[in-house]
C-alpha cells in the first residue's frame, strides 16, 4: 500500500497509511492545520472547539487550561476512587455469571469518574454521551452542527455559574483560568468545557471494550496477566498499540509538495491511528498481542501539540480495570449466542459485548 492515498469518499481526502507519516503529520502543525479535524469536511467545519481546533502558538495557553487536573499528579489524587469504583462495579456483576460489558462496565467507569472530575450530575451523562456520539459516530438522528451547539449550550450555564468559584473540579479550573492576562469569554469557556466532554465520554469507554473482547477471545493472554499481574503495566501499552480507536485528521495549510505528492490548501488528510500500531515496520508481527515486545510504537494518543491530555488518566483507568477484573473474574468468554459487531467513525466502537463466566471460578478478592 502507498504511504499516502486519496479517496473520493467522505467528501474526498488524503489518508496516511504508515506510522512514520501518521506521527509526523500529527505534529507538523505548520503544514497540517488543526482548524478542521474531521471528515467529511462540511461536518468537521462545525467542530470548532478550542484547544483542539487551534494551531500553535495560539493553542498553548488554551491547552494549559484543560490539562490541570488531568496531570499525573491530578490523576494520582483520584486513583483510589477509581479503584474503589472499578472494584464495586465488577463485584456487582461477578455473581451473575454474565454481563454486557459495554453498558455494564465500559460506559460506567470512565463516565462516572469523568462526571465526578467535572462535577456535573451523573443523570446528565446519557444525554452528554448521546450528543458526543453524534459528533464521533453520527447515527443520523441529529445533525453535526446541532450536536456541537447542544454541548456548548449545555455547558454555558455551568461554566458561568462557576466563574469565581473555589471548587476543585475541571470546569472551575478552566473558567477561572486566563489566556495571557485576560479572562476567558463565556463562549470560550463553554467551548473549552464542551471539548473536555467530547474527550471524556467516548474514548476509554470504547478502548476498554476492544481490550476485553481480546481477552475474552484469547484466554491464554488473559491467563498470562492473571498469573503475572506485574505485566499489566506493560500490557496496557501493548493494548493501546494494538487497539487504537481514533481516526481524525488535519487540513492542508497551503499548497505544497509533500512526499512527492501535490497537496492543495484546504484538502483534508485523515490519520487513522490504527495504521500506526499495526505498521509492521514499526512493530513486527503487529496483529499479535504480546506483552514481551521491546517497542511500543503507536500514535494512539496522537502526537505533537495536541497529544491527548487525558492519556495518563486513560492508562490508569485501563490498568486498574485489568487489575481488579482479573483478580475477581480470571476466566471469561464471549456469550456464544452473541454476535459481535462494530461501528466506525471518528471513534470506533464495539456495539455490544456480552460476556459469560462461571461464578464458581471467580473470587471476591477480599
Amino acid at each position, binding site marked *: 500500500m502507498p504511504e499516502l492515498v486519496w479517496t473520493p469518499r467522505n467528501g474526498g481526502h488524503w489518508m496516511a497509511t504508515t506510522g512514520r507519516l501518521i506521527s509526523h503529520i500529527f505534529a507538523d*502543525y505548520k503544514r497540517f492545520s488543526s482548524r478542521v479535524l474531521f471528515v467529511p469536511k462540511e461536518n468537521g467545519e462545525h467542530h470548532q472547539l478550542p484547544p483542539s481546533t487551534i494551531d*500553535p*502558538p495560539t*493553542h*498553548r495557553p488554551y*491547552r*494549559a487550561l484543560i*490539562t*490541570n487536573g*488531568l*496531570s*499525573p*499528579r491530578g490523576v494520582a489524587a483520584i486513583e483510589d476512587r477509581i479503584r474503589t469504583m472499578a472494584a464495586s462495579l465488577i463485584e456487582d456483576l461477578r455473581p451473575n455469571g454474565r454481563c454486557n460489558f459495554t453498558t455494564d462496565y465500559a460506559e460506567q467507569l470512565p463516565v462516572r469518574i469523568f462526571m465526578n472530575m467535572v462535577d456535573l450530575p451523573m443523570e446528565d451523562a446519557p444525554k452528554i454521551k448521546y450528543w458526543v456520539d453524534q459528533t464521533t459516530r453520527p447515527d443520523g438522528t441529529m445533525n453535526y452542527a446541532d450536536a456541537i451547539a447542544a454541548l456548548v449550550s449545555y455547558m454555558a450555564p455551568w461554566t458561568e455559574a462557576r466563574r469565581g468559584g473555589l471548587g476543585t473540579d475541571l470546569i472551575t479550573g478552566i473558567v477561572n483560568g486566563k489566556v495571557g492576562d485576560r479572562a476567558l469569554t463565556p463562549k470560550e469557556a463553554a467551548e473549552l468545557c464542551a471539548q473536555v466532554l467530547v474527550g471524556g465520554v467516548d474514548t476509554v469507554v470504547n478502548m476498554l471494550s476492544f481490550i476485553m473482547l481480546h481477552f475474552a477471545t484469547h484466554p491464554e493472554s488473559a491467563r498470562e496477566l492473571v498469573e503475572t499481574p506485574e505485566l499489566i*503495566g*506493560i500490557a496496557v*501499552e501493548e493494548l493501546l498499540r494494538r487497539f487504537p480507536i481514533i481516526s481524525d485528521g488535519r487540513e492542508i495549510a497551503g499548497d505544497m509538495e509533500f512526499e512527492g505528492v501535490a497537496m492543495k490548501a484546504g484538502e483534508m488528510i485523515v490519520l487513522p491511528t490504527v495504521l500506526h500500531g499495526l505498521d509492521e515496520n*514499526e512493530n513486527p508481527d503487529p496483529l499479535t498481542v504480546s506483552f514481551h*515486545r*521491546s*517497542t*511500543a*510504537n*503507536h500514535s494512539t*494518543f496522537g502526537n*505533537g*501539540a*495536541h*497529544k*491527548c*491530555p*487525558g*492519556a*495518563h488518566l486513560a*492508562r490508569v483507568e485501563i490498568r486498574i480495570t485489568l487489575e481488579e477484573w482479573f483478580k475477581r473474574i480470571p476466566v471469561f468468554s464471549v456469550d456464544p449466542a452473541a454476535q459481535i459487531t462494530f461501528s466506525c467513525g471518528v471513534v470506533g466502537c464495539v456495539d455490544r459485548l456480552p460476556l459469560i463466566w462461571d461464578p464458581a471460578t471467580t473470587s471476591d478478592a477480599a
Partner: protein
Amino acid sequence: MAKIIFKQPDGESVDIDARNGFTLMEVAVNNGVVGIDGECGGGCSCATCHVYIDANFIDAIDPPTEYETDLLECIVGYTERSRLSCQVKVSDALDGILLTIPSDQGLA
C-alpha cells in the same frame, strides 16, 4: 530498549529499562520518577518535564523544534543542555543516558 538513568532533585538516581517508542516523560511518569510532572500530557505546552541531557548524548538526539525551543527559553534554569522530556523518544541510541532533573519545574 535503553537504560535510562534519571538523577532526581534529591540526588538519588533511578535506572529504568525503557522500551523504544515511549517519550522520556512517559517513562518517568509511568515509573514514579520524582521531579518530572508532565502536567500537559506531552503536548509541549506546560514545561514541567524539563531535564538536562547528558553531554555525551546531545548528538544522539534530534535537536528541539522551534516550538519546543520557544518554550524552553522561558523556563527556570534553561541551558543549552535543556530538553522537554515529552519531546524525546526512547531509542537504542539512548542506552545509558543520564538525565538530570532540575529542582524546579515550569515557566520562569
